[in-house]
C-alpha cells in the first residue's frame, strides 16, 4: 500500500472507531468521551495528511 492508501484506510477506521459505536462514558474516561474525542481524532488526521502532502 502507498502512504496515501494507508491514510485513506486509517480515515475510514477512525471514522468508525472514534465517531461511531455506542457512546459509553467509562468511569475512568468520562471527560474525554464524546465531542472532544471526535475533535482530537480528526485534528490528528488533518495534521498527518498535511505531513503527507509536504513529503510528496
Amino acid at each position, binding site marked *: 500500500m502507498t502512504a496515501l492508501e494507508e491514510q*485513506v484506510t486509517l480515515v475510514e477506521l477512525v471514522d468508525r*472507531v472514534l465517531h*461511531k459505536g455506542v*457512546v459509553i462514558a*467509562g468511569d*475512568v*474516561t468520562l471527560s474525554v468521551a464524546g465531542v472532544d*474525542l471526535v475533535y*482530537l481524532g480528526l485534528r490528528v488526521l488533518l495534521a498527518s495528511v498535511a505531513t503527507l502532502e509536504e513529503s510528496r
Partner: protein
Amino acid sequence: MIGTTPAVGWYVFGVVPSDAAPAPGTYLVERGPLAAIAAEVSLAEFGEEVLPERLNDRAWLEEKVRVHEAVLQSFVGVTPVVPLRFGAIYHDLGDVRRLLAERGEGFEAVLERVRGRVELGVKAWFDPTRVTRPAAGSGREYLQQRRDELSSARDAAAVAAAAHERLASTADAAVVNRPHPRELTGRDEQMLLNGAYLVPDGDETFAAEVARLAEEQLGAGITFELTGPWPPYNFAEDDA
C-alpha cells in the same frame, strides 16, 4: 516505585451474547445473557490525564484504533456484536458488569437487529475531469463547457442522493454520514456520498446494486467504492 502495582483499568470494546467465544487477547465479562469484550490496560497509557495527549499522537492513535477494529472484526460473520466507541474504560470488573445491567435491554435489542447482518460502506466520488464530453475548441465552447461542469457538479450531488435512496431500499437499515473534506481524504476527487448500510451477511444483492450504479454513472464522472464487511459501528445505537 518498589512495592506498588501500576494502576490498571478495563477497556471495553463491545458487547456480545454470553455464549460467544472471546477474541484473542481479551476476556468476556459475563452478566446474564450478555458479555462485555474487555482487556486490561494501563492507566499510565489510558488514564484521564494522559489520554487527551495520547490522542494527538498519530502513531499511538493508529495502533489503538487498529486493535479496537481487529477485536470487533473477529466477531463479524461469527456472532452478533455491539461495537462501543473507542475509549470506554472502567476501574474494575464490577463496573463493567454494572454497565451490562444498566444498558442490557438496549444491547439486547441491538444484538437482535444486527444478528446475521454486516455493515457495508459506500463512498461515491466525483471527478469533473472524468465527465465524458467532446473537447472544447472555441472560446464559446469553453464557456459552455464551464457551465456544463458547474451543472454536472449539481447533477452529481443529486445522483449521490438518488444512489443512497436506491442502496437504502436494498438494505435493512441505512445511515448517511457527512462526506469527508479533501483535506482529510488527500484525494483530488470530491466525496459525494459517505453511506453505511446494514445488509444480510453473505448476500450479494447489495454489492450487485453498487456495481450497477457504478456502471450507470461512469460517464458522469462518478465512481463508487464498497468497503467492509464491518462490525455494525453505524447501527450500534439502540434508537438507530
